[in-house]
């Protein structure tokens, strides 16, 4: 297998006791490799530790949490660059963008050097190649779109801010990039959306904005922590499709945390099942769905009520 992007070894996370909760061990003994470019789903119920794993990899655990084991980030190896986030008319596969470390693409959509639909900017060299830089190397999408967006800033400002912070763009370029991103996440009227405020958008639209902000710095890893759980079925399917498209286009790695194994099965390459702070199963989607090794996985699969299940009530007439 190709070298992993993230290597988790014997990870344990313990939350400190506080006013509200007792101290508890949220994760123990987790060994996991995330391959570059793969889509990995982490499935579990409440208390399984799946969100804790996501937060740990992203470096978002509270300061009081005790972490044992290691999380190694291999995204900044020499010669490896994050693939430029491009739209179909210019693509790395057609050799139109050089991947050699020597060249520094400084392409601005405003200067018309490309067809106005690529993203570019000065790379800020990282001093420490072993730690992932939040926002730059890892993007994070939270469950509640209303809580992850600042209610007093416009949508455009929030997305542009990410580009500015990581690429040193000035506001004009940053806003142009933000408009591009809002278009990529299929927001209707991206230019108009720049000025909109979060409360004016629907839940699904807010989540699209959150995704745009998460990928604005072209991270190598995108983590979606129950990103669709607060949305209705139709919007959920759209967001899942959006995530699939974005990760395919950019070659981004996706870590998709969810409680819905059926939803994950339609998106992921591999599935990891968590329970009570430990990983109980890890395998390809086909293997986990059709031939689960662990009884818990089997129970989860059985609990899913598909549209072909046997009815529990006699329909047609009540009673």
């Amino acid at each position: 297998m190709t070298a992993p992007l993230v290597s988790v070894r014997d990870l344990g996370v313990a939350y400190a006791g506080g006013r509200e909760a007792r101290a508890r061990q949220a994760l123990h003994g987790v060994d996991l490799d995330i391959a570059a470019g793969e889509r990995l789903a982490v499935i579990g119920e409440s208390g399984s530790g799946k969100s804790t794993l996501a937060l740990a990899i992203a470096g978002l655990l509270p300061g009081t949490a005790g972490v044992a084991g290691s999380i190694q980030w291999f995204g900044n190896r020499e010669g490896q660059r994050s693939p430029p986030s491009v739209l179909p008319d210019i693509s790395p596969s057609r050799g139109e963008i050089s991947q050699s470390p020597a060249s520094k693409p400084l392409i601005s959509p405003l200067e018309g050097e490309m067809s106005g639909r690529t993203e570019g900017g000065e790379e800020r060299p990282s001093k420490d190649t072993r730690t992932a830089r939040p926002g730059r190397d890892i993007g994070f999408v939270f469950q509640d779109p209303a809580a992850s967006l600042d209610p007093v800033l416009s949508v455009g400002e929030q997305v542009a801010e990410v580009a500015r912070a990581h690429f040193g763009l000035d506001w004009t370029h940053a806003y142009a990039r933000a408009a591009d991103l809002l278009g990529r996440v299929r927001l209707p009227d991206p230019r108009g959306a720049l000025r909109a405020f979060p409360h004016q958008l629907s839940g699904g639209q807010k989540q699209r904005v959150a995704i745009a902000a998460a990928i604005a710095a072209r991270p190598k890893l995108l983590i979606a922590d129950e990103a669709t759980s607060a949305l209705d079925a139709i919007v959920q399917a759209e967001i899942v499709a959006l995530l699939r498209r974005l990760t395919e286009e950019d070659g981004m790695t996706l870590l998709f945390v969810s409680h819905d194994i059926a939803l994950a099965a339609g998106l992921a390459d591999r599935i990891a099942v968590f329970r009570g702070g430990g990983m109980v199963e890890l395998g390809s989607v086909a293997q986990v769905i059709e031939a689960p090794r662990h009884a818990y996985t089997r129970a989860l699969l059985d609990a899913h009520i598909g549209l072909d299940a046997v009815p529990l009530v006699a329909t047609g007439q009540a009673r």
Partner: protein
Amino acid sequence: MSAALFFRMPEAVVGAVILAALALMALAAPFVFPGDPLAIAGPPLTPPFRDWALPLGTDRLGRDVLAELFHGARTSLAVGLAAAAASLAVGAVVGTLAGFAGGLIDEALMRVTDAFQTVPGFLLALAFVSVVGPSLGVVVAAIALSAWTGPARVARAEVLSIRERDYVAGARVIGMHPLEIAFREVLPNALPPVLALSSVIVAAAILTEAALSFLGLGDPNRVTWGGMIAEGRAVLRSAPFLSIVPGIALVLTVLGVYLAGEGAVESSAVRRSLS
């Protein structure tokens, strides 16, 4: 409120110690200094630390300063706590009614609150005591007269948010009477931020009472620190300790109340968890 957390904060502990000392003084006063503190105990204007029977000396009339200090603590503490309790109670009830009922009742109550809030608290207290006459109960009422508005607003704000919660809807669905919902379901949950105001109100009440006594509008039958400071004014140059000692007591008390109050709020603050 978590006692463990409270005692881990140095400021809170200092505040608690001061308050405990104050409470001890107040409770012990009639035992340690039986008899009338306003009775003559020795030669007038005895400086402190000269005579160990009169550790803090005597005032212009020869009254024992330490005895007056202890008895004054009773007054200050009693007034502070009573005024705070009264203003919190009135404020919480008014705020809950306004927030829960909404509409005209809310408007009417809030305009009344505005009226009381725009008049400077001390002047209101001054006017009230001047008209009704100085006694401990009147002083307490005078202070509460303006202090209730803060708790009322905070309570109303909390209630407006709690009103929308599922458990209030749940109480309605099971057929609970609106007044019962307001006072059994909503008010107890609206109290924490209201109670956070209590330390400020107690401190302000003690100071107001001292100021009223200083101006001669306090209860004349009781020893009060404010009265002691006023007494000491006439001999400020020759016997400054007469005003300074009760002044220090006042400062320490207010500090103690404030620190302990902050500690109580900090240790009971419920943090929203990350999960």
